[in-house]
């Protein structure tokens, strides 16, 4: 069991401070920048980092992330580059879990065992494969477990309770609730809350919601029902804006999310 993710198991509802998970596309706009942005996110108050290894057809990411991905593709970042920045991050940061996300073909092309070896050695904590559903994931999950890496599972509005209970039995680390599949989210707070309530009873690990969060206000609304939020597009959007002060803007934005999330317990 991964040690950095372990503390959250069964931590909710006791633990009231919601989780803040932040995503970056690796190599957007270049590898060192990503490395620096990681620090900025942590400084802003992120609890988890997600690193998206770019894929030529990131079909199930939203439009902003697809553009970030496109920029990153120019950098031709491979697994080695990814390992490097994770290892480098770990030199200064022991606690914050790092989740790597990609599409399955990148993993297959590089060799699944080699990738797991590399991720473990670098200090990553989990792997999320966009197009690998639970049913196809058994072998990968086994190999990851051998190296104490978590296979992060997604949950979606279409996931039935039966199916969720099934998946939840073996799930590790966190669940990522994806309220969308690369499109806009039509957010109905009542319905979202009901879904979260239903799922929460069957899960020991936190449900972190990816819901196109664009502001502290958004984050606060979501965190009323979920255990935390995953913010990606808004960060990629800041990166897309460019300029000399991207890091600063990332830090400020994340700090604002943090404050808003921390305010949820008091609501």
């Amino acid at each position, binding site marked *: 069991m991964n040690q950095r993710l372990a503390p959250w198991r069964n931590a909710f509802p006791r633990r009231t401070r919601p989780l803040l998970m932040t995503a970056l596309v690796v190599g957007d706009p270049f590898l060192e920048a990503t490395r620096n942005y990681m620090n900025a996110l942590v400084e802003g108050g992120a609890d988890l980092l997600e690193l998206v290894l770019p894929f030529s057809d990131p079909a199930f990411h939203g439009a902003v992330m697809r553009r970030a991905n496109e920029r990153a593709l120019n950098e*031709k970042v491979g697994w080695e580059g990814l390992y490097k920045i994770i290892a480098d991050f770990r030199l200064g940061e022991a606690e914050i879990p790092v989740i790597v996300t990609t599409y399955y*073909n*990148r993993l297959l092309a590089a060799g699944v065992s080699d990738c797991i070896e590399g991720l473990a050695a670098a200090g990553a904590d989990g792997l999320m494969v966009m*197009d690998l559903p639970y049913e196809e994931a058994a072998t*990968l999950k086994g190999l990851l477990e051998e190296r104490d890496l978590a296979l992060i599972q997604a949950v979606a509005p279409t996931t039935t309770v039966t199916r969720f209970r099934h998946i939840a039995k073996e799930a590790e680390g966190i669940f990522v609730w994806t309220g969308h599949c690369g499109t806009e989210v039509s957010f109905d707070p009542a319905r979202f809350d009901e879904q979260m309530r239903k799922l929460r009873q069957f899960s020991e690990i936190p449900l972190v919601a990816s819901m196109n969060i664009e502001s502290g206000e958004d984050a606060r609304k979501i965190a009323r029902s979920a255990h935390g939020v995953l913010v990606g597009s808004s960060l990629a959007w800041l990166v897309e804006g460019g300029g000399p002060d991207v890091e600063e803007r990332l830090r400020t934005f994340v700090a604002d999310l943090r404050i808003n999330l921390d305010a949820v317990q008091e609501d």
Partner: protein
Amino acid sequence: MSGQSFGGRYVPECLWTPMQEVAEAYAENAGEESRRRQAEWLTRRVGRPTPLSHLVALSRDGGGAQIWAKREDLCQGGSFCATSAVSQALLAKRMGREHLIGATATGDFGVALGSMGAALGMKVTIFIRRDDMEAEPFNTARMRQLGVEVIPVAGAITGRRQAIGEALRQFSQVSDSAFYASSSLAAPNPYPRILREALQVIGSECREQLSREAIEAEYIVAPVGSGSFAAGLFGAFLAEDAPTNSQLVGVQSGGDGDSTRGAAPLVNGRPGVYLGTRSMVLQDEQGQIATTPTTASGMAMPVAGPQHARWLQQGRAHYVTVTDQEALQARRRLTEVEGIFASRESGYALAYSLKLAPTLEPDQHIVVGISGSGIRELGSSLQGAEEGKPL
């Protein structure tokens, strides 16, 4: 994850359950009544069976084998897509869905699905890359006349797969009321099976027609983009009870002839996972999907349906390329020598057959699959003509 198995359903969580519902509905749907209804649509509406034409003049010119054409150009809408559209639209209807969502590159599948949507009173939304749309004014006009909502898609990824991505994203938002209809055999389960089983009627007819002519085919040759048409034609010849040992040849686009280009995952690809299925994928060493430069948009697929990967692995079919130029020439010859218009995609199968024919004897037979009429192309050729290009 064994390197040996192809297929699967490699989709994000949001699509898994909707596709499982399709799989379950399809399994329930497999009854006699549903087969009867489908056959009725194919016979009464689509125009099945399509003929098997003996290309006497072309064969004579080739000086070798007799060439026969399986004529999907004569289906309603002008392509084999009519048949897979029937199957999927009827399934959707049975599932109580009133909205069909799909992607198209050539527009043929869009027209086919649009026709079924109109007839069944269902809304149809078709995604198509903007440049494909502009290259196919004719099919775009037809889709619009059928009442299809045609949504052009822009972005860095070329071809049908970009439109497929957008179609799936949109579908994921309305997956409880809509039905995703796949034009591609390279798709998550249950689509490869649905498409093959729907299109297998092509091969079954062909087998029957050959036996009525009292001949056996040495070769069965079909164009392979995603490979749905080819799977439909080949399927019946791979069945247990298949009477012959016909060689099955899938022809992919070799682009301009430079082997690093083209769109031939079954020739130049490696196993991988793309578009929801594990199959042969055209990719670089990093696992990035290759672009597919070919002049035939129906052929521009970097991944083929999983059945083809399996047949390749088992040696039950083999796969070759011809260049875009060869395909265009072959197609032109078919028009000039036989008076038949065929889709650009058919040109690949035809070009290969024309190479094969002289190596065989006049009492040997080649069946070449004509996937469509290519009528759509006249739309672009007319446009071209107005810009001063030759027709």
